[in-house]
């Protein structure tokens, strides 16, 4: 017999009715269900049920995110060594990345799990695995220099205000990871924006070496006053391939477009993400970019003349498209309006980038904004769909 199984079996009586820790039965059950699928059987027809459960569904998202962590750990170390003028040796860089990323992940999961377990135990239901996805997404969107207490505060806000007060996973209308991220953005702008936050400097250094620019491509683009953004990017070291592979200072794991594409394809293949949202997103980005190209002239902001495809490469665009917009809970449920939802996200993100000087990147805010419209979009399609039905009402 599996030793873990033996452990659970030997402790169960303490949590059962009449046991010393009866109050914590749900906590016990929650922990057990991580290791072993419950033995519960169906009580009503249909008597057989599909093998897929929410745990598996969410686990697949985490699988898709794991390469981002590997990339993030490397990139944090790589940028740190570049900025600090240290030799670019692989293992020391990975060590810096691990030192930075692992504590953030540990804090995120510990705090997130604490809140979820608290609400689950009080409400007497099982822990919903949406939590684990939220906690996997959240650190990837943060700058690597974020203080750990702010990480804890951010995930607390995301889990509690973004999700639990509405009843937990499935009942939230905002994406909890983004809610936490947006909270940090507005509450602690000094630690979440600017050029300095995206790079971890080696101990003892206060500023990067002269040749290193800590500004993200979006910050660079916003500072361009005339001429071609692509030109300025390549002068700053942001060539097309750098942007595609994501090896530049940015939030921990969101910059690699290649991994986002692979992750999105994986999620579509296993049936977790809806291709409609992703395609809608991309179309929205390209449409808005093209529209701006049409009105661009030498006197307007150079952003208007940027090739629309570059919008998909920089900032959090690819990461947001692959993992944030496809969250089925906060997106609309109806298939048709998922196109509209995605399209609007793409459009608005490009418009914010081009016209709003306050935000270099807008996709996080835009996704939260469109989350609020998801029920309305659903309602519109539902009304249209029900009108087509031949009534059957006695």
């Amino acid at each position, binding site marked *: 017999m599996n030793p873990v199984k033996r452990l659970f079996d030997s402790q169960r009586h303490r949590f059962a009715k009449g046991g010393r820790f009866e109050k914590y039965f749900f906590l016990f059950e929650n922990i057990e269900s991580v290791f072993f699928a419950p033995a519960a059987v169906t009580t009503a*027809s*249909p008597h057989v049920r599909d093998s*897929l*459960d929410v745990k*598996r569904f969410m686990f697949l998202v985490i699988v898709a995110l794991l390469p981002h962590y590997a990339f993030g750990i490397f990139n944090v170390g790589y940028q740190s060594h570049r900025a600090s003028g240290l030799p670019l040796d692989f293992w020391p860089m990975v060590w810096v990345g691990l030192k930075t990323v692992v504590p953030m992940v540990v804090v995120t999961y510990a705090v997130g799990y604490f809140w979820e377990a608290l609400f689950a135990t009080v409400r007497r239901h099982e822990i919903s695995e949406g939590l684990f996805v939220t906690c996997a997404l959240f650190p990837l969107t943060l700058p690597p220099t974020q203080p750990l207490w702010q990480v804890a505060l951010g995930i607390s806000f995301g889990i509690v205000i973004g999700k639990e007060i509405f009843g937990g996973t499935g009942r939230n209308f905002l994406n909890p990871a983004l809610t936490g991220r947006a909270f940090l953005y507005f509450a602690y702008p000094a630690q979440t924006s600017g050029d300095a936050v995206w790079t971890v400097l080696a101990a003892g250094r206060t500023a990067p070496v002269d040749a290193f620019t800590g500004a993200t491509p979006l910050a660079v683009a916003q500072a361009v006053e005339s001429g071609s953004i692509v030109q300025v990017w390549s002068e700053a070291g942001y060539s097309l391939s750098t942007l595609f592979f994501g090896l530049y200072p940015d939030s921990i794991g969101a910059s690699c477009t290649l991994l986002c594409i692979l992750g999105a394809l994986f999620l579509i293949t296993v049936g977790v993400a809806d291709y409609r949202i992703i395609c809608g997103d991309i179309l929205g980005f390209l449409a808005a970019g093209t529209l701006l190209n049409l009105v661009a002239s030498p006197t307007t902001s150079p952003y208007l003349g940027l090739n629309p495809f570059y919008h998909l490469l920089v900032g959090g665009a690819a990461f947001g498209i692959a993992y944030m917009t496809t969250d089925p809970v906060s997106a609309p449920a109806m298939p048709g309006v998922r196109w509209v939802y995605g399209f609007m996200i793409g459009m608005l993100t490009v418009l914010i980038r081009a016209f709003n000087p306050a935000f270099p990147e807008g996709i996080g805010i835009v996704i939260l904004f469109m989350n609020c419209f998801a029920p309305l979009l659903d309602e519109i399609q539902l009304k249209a769909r029900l009108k087509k039905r031949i009534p059957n009402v006695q």
Partner: protein
Amino acid sequence: MVSTLHHIKGYNLKLSGKPSAVLEDLPLPKQVAAVAGRLRFVKPRLAVKVGDRVKVGSLLFADKRRPEVQFRSPGGGTVSAVNFGPRRRLQEVVITVDLEEAFEEFPRISGAELDSIDRARLIELIVAGGLWPLIRELPFRDAARPENLPPAVFVYLDSLEPFHPLPQVYLQGREDLLQFGLRVLHVLAGAPALVTACRDNAQALNGLKEVIGRRLTGRYPAHDPGVVLYRTKTSADQNHAWYIEGQDLLLIAEFLQTGRFPTGRIVTLAGPAATRPGHFRTRIGVPLAALTDGRTAAGEVRLVAGGVLTGNPTPRDSYLGLFEKALVLLAEGNTSGDFLGWTLPGAQTPSYSRAFLSSFRRPREFPLDCNRHGGLRACIQCNFCTQVCPVDILPQLTYKAILAGEVEESLDHGLLDCVECGLCSLVCPSKIELLKILRQAREQFYEEMI
């Protein structure tokens, strides 16, 4: 004229334990029963008591609200038990069968008489024989209302739900009886009935090429008359169509031809926990033990009367009801899963979704059990229920409307179009009892309408 209705939405459960097409005769059971406990929309009023002598075709109980819904004895002998369930609901009336059974005699109708018979007279005969409840009415699937002329009558010969008797087995040599039954329905409905069969079975039914009016392609529940109606109806007037299952129509035809209550039935015993799945010729109301003894796998086994998706769990000492033509045996499966099972690739894990490796391999059948495969969660809008629903309901929104008490809204969503196929519950990763919620809402609405 055969027309084909294509691409009906749904899902075929990949369940092992398919019944063989060989028909085996079971010995005459010592006891038979009329089952009331699993009837829906019937409030039975008992007409006999323990110790009464009954003939085949004697009245056992009838619906308190609808006198035409009568249930008659499937055996001749002595009423040996009247079993009640919780809240004193009648479960079954058990008859110990005599060696020489006596029959109630009813008037016979010949083929020639059928041409000139009055509709009211025909209804009266079928009602008196206790076979009227076999004719069902959409959308609630209760007994048809004889006072109304239906907009259409469907006869469905087969069921894609695992595992119902195959028409090529139960119709063998009884094609004439089916023809007679169709003439009866013509009188009842004032128009010819539409016979439907799924494509594979329709091809096997060589002698009935002329009879089958519509061939169906698609996945379960493509066979269901509610689905066929939903796909073909053009106005709300057609919602109250009637339907009858092929084997039930044979009973009515046999009853009218012989003047005696028909007792024969061909049923299937199947499922992964059945050691010798097959077709069996036996009697209406046969004790389950007569079917399962010696044909059940070891271990804890659940007996499901009716199909695996819509049927009812039945205790071992129960009987097969009038409407139940299949007994599916499933392992209970009340054991916890593999260590960290959710992280495994799942090459051997069947699923509707594409979340396991099995979805990318050649389809095969699996010995599924009654395990729920997961904890209860809130709806995460995966939309799987919407994708499988054969009548385009949005179960994940409809069930929320029901739970919020929005009856009107749920009706707008098509609650009454629901064919109760159970696919939404089957595929739900949050393990929400969608079928149960939709069914209860329909029943509650029915009770308020009556």
